[in-house]
């Protein structure tokens, strides 16, 4: 008896530290201090957390590509790793952003805690569901020693969505708008039981920058330099269809992926983890398309598609990466409202087209007799056309309903509903060439030519993206969008000093020339900025920094393949060759663009700039260029030009090959 009472304090003294330790750990877990919790169990053999840590390290899970994919680690500039995620709460360790191993250990520690991960209400196992699932697969958690926490919200979500597939959705170029000319990509989660029209009920996972300023310059600078945050959001597909296909008139391409159910599940769990955290958004590199790939990497890390990109990331290039890796099952096409209107218009006879326009202008009442005279089906088709016009115009004019246009829409729909026939579905044929099958983005040029200074070798390079004379397939719309275009001429028999002439270095070239017709009234416009040579002669290497651009109108001649452009150009240039070191000129610009079959394009253009400022010298360019497509990624071009530089008129001609890569 007395032995027990003597032993008791001894027992307590031995047990006390162990008990305090247990309380210590419990407290640390409750507080969410997982770095300290990991420290606390160091060397403690009998703690389950210590055992898991030891096994995880032995298996080198912190070096596993899956771990790096889930945490978005990339090799840092100075060795080591840095995660692209910028939200603090994405990491369980204070050092999580730069220490994959520590993050692994603290993540394991966090699984023992029920403390919600801010700002959510979810416990760590639920908040970091993909990590939990994977670590459980690799380490086999014992539910007795590491109890499984509930993650009902995800479970309910998952069961309601019933995901069976993934689709990468590509809203393509927005005609006539610079802010979306490269297109966009997002991921759609395909639900069991949805197909065709009901696909719009699927959910999408969308990464986008969240701009906190609309001021043009600040917006530009912040977007380029990581000044905005980017976030993932889950939005129903029908909301996105409205935004892209209706409001912005962009055609949509749906790349259904060839992936297993396990991939679908992992990607969805990872998307769940990414909700509520943020990344620094970089418009050229870590943009929406890049993050579609990083999201898919949650299970498709073995393809290392992200690793293929060094520098800028374009949506079409990410689609090419998916196709190249055999991940595309099939592609569907969802036409924009603009394309639907064009298709519908083609279906009508001339009389109905005119009646539709008249009804759009005046309403259905005034033209009721003419409408009643038509067979019911044609009357319905005419009203459908008129309604499309009114709605297109209403959306174009503003987001918020414009009262007269809305009233007109109602009148039209009520009149239409009285014709008791159903409108047949409008079939808009899918273009034969998909966006990922178009010519590659960068372009290299090599050729021969001659001008006033002699014969030359022509060398050129363009970074991105597309020009009208490039092969048209896969690039919808009449536009040119180029960043980084360099043209050089090397004169082998060059006079004394100068062999190499920089003809031009354009930083940006944007050109929109959608034709106007009796309904669509888009103004064409273009802008180019960069460095150009101002003298024709090679030995005068003077360059100027220029900005040139202007508005215009484009017409389609007849119903044929020829576009005619007429506009006004203005140029401001800065350089030592000009009197007073600067130049300002303006004048007319004309162009004729003709498609000769699928493979051949011809462009004849001219502009004349009258010097309007201190330097009164006029400058002009008259050019004809034709491009013959030899393959998807090769063209043979011939160009002739008559130019007036600061040193007078000259004539030039050249032949070259463009290779796209």
């Amino acid at each position: 008896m007395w032995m027990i009472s003597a032993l008791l304090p001894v027992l307590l003294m031995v047990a006390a530290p162990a008990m305090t330790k247990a309380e210590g750990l419990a407290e640390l877990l409750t507080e969410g201090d997982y770095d300290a919790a990991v420290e606390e169990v160091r060397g403690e053999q009998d703690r389950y957390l210590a055992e898991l840590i030891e096994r995880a390290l032995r298996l080198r899970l912190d070096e596993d590509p899956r771990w790096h994919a889930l945490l978005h680690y990339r090799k840092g500039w100075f060795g080591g790793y840095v995660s692209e995620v910028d939200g603090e709460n994405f990491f369980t360790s204070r050092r999580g952003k730069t220490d994959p191993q520590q993050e692994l250990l603290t993540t394991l520690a966090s699984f023992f805690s029920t403390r919600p991960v801010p700002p959510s209400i979810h416990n760590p196992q639920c908040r970091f569901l993909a990590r939990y699932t994977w670590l459980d697969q690799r380490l086999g958690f014992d539910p007795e020693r590491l109890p499984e926490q509930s993650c009902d919200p995800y479970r309910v979500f998952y069961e309601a969505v019933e995901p069976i597939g993934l689709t990468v959705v590509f809203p393509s170029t927005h005609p006539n708008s610079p802010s979306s000319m490269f297109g966009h990509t997002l991921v759609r989660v395909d639900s069991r039981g949805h197909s065709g029209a009901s696909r719009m009920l699927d959910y999408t996972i969308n990464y986008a920058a969240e701009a906190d300023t609309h001021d043009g310059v600040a917006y530009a600078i912040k977007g380029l330099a990581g000044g905005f945050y980017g976030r993932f959001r889950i939005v129903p597909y029908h909301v996105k269809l409205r935004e892209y296909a209706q409001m912005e008139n962009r055609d949509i391409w749906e790349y259904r992926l060839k992936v297993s159910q396990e991939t679908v599940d992992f990607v969805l769990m990872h998307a769940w983890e990414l909700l509520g955290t943020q990344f620094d958004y970089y418009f050229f590199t870590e943009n929406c398309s890049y993050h579609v790939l990083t999201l898919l990497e949650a299970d498709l890390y073995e393809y290392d598609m992200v690793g293929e990109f060094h520098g800028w990331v374009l949506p079409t290039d990410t689609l090419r990466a998916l196709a190249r890796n055999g991940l595309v099952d099939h592609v569907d096409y969802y036409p924009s409202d603009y394309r639907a209107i064009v298709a519908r218009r083609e279906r009508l006879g001339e009389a109905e087209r005119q009646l539709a326009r008249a009804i759009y202008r005046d309403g259905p009442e005034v033209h009721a007799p003419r409408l009643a005279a038509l067979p019911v089906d044609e009357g319905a088709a005419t009203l459908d056309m008129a309604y499309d016009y009114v709605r297109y115009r209403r959306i174009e004019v503003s987001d918020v309903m414009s009262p007269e246009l809305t009233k007109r829409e109602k009148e039209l729909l009520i009149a239409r509903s009285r014709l008791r026939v159903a409108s047949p579905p409008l079939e808009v044929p899918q273009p034969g060439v998909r966006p990922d099958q178009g010519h590659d983005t960068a372009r290299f040029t090599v050729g021969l030519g001659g001008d006033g200074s002699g014969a030359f070798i022509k060398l050129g390079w363009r970074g991105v993206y597309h020009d009208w004379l490039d092969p048209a397939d896969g690039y919808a719309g009449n536009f040119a969008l180029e960043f980084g275009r360099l043209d050089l001429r090397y004169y082998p028999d060059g006079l004394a000093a100068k062999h190499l002439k920089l003809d031009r270095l354009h930083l940006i070239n944007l050109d929109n020339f959608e034709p106007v017709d009796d309904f669509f009234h888009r103004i064409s416009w273009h802008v180019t900025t960069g460095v150009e040579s101002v003298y024709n002669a090679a030995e005068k290497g003077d360059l100027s920094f220029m900005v040139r651009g202007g508005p215009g109108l484009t017409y389609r001649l007849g119903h044929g393949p020829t576009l005619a452009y007429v506009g006004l150009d203005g140029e401001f240039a800065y350089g030592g060759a000009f009197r007073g070191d600067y130049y300002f000129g303006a004048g007319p610009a004309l162009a004729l663009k003709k498609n000769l079959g699928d493979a051949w394009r011809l462009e004849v253009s001219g502009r004349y700039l009258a010097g309007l400022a201190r330097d009164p010298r006029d400058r002009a360019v008259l050019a004809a260029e034709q491009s013959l497509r030899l393959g998807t990624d090769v063209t043979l071009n011939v160009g002739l030009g008559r130019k007036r530089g600061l040193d007078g008129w000259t004539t030039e001609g050249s032949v070259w090959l463009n290779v796209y890569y």
Partner: protein
Amino acid sequence: MKKMLLLLSLVFAMCVVSQPVLAEETGAGCGLGKILFEGKSGKSPNIAAAILNVFPIPNTFFMSTAASMGEELLGCDPSTTVLQEEQKRVFVAANMDNLSRDMAQGNGAHLAALATVMGIADEDRPAFYQMSQEEYGEFDRAASDSPAAMVAALNTAMLERPALVKYIQ
């Protein structure tokens, strides 16, 4: 506002840049978020609730659509708990103009999607589309009120048709 954003931008964003999160609750705090946080049962509310519950702040992709429509997204009656009613209302509120057009035309993708939301079998869809066109005047009047009124009108019309009454509980 979206158009203004496009006009103002001098840089070409590769990704559509979205609006900042606008926590504009309509009316007396009746928004999708609020109703869902009041713990309703049924599958559909919980889907959105599950997503929304990641943050305590209601995610506003529903809000901004409703705000731009100038209409209340959902009625404030907390007693309605029918699963399909919720899903129906959300889809209708976000697609009023598309649904109007499809109903007047007796056909269309958005109307077909609504039929899916309501669980209408393929063989009953022609009757559903026909009804939409016949009752269009009535629906249009209700739509001017609110999305909820439009849904109520839809329910009423379906109750009057033997082929479709089984889809209204």
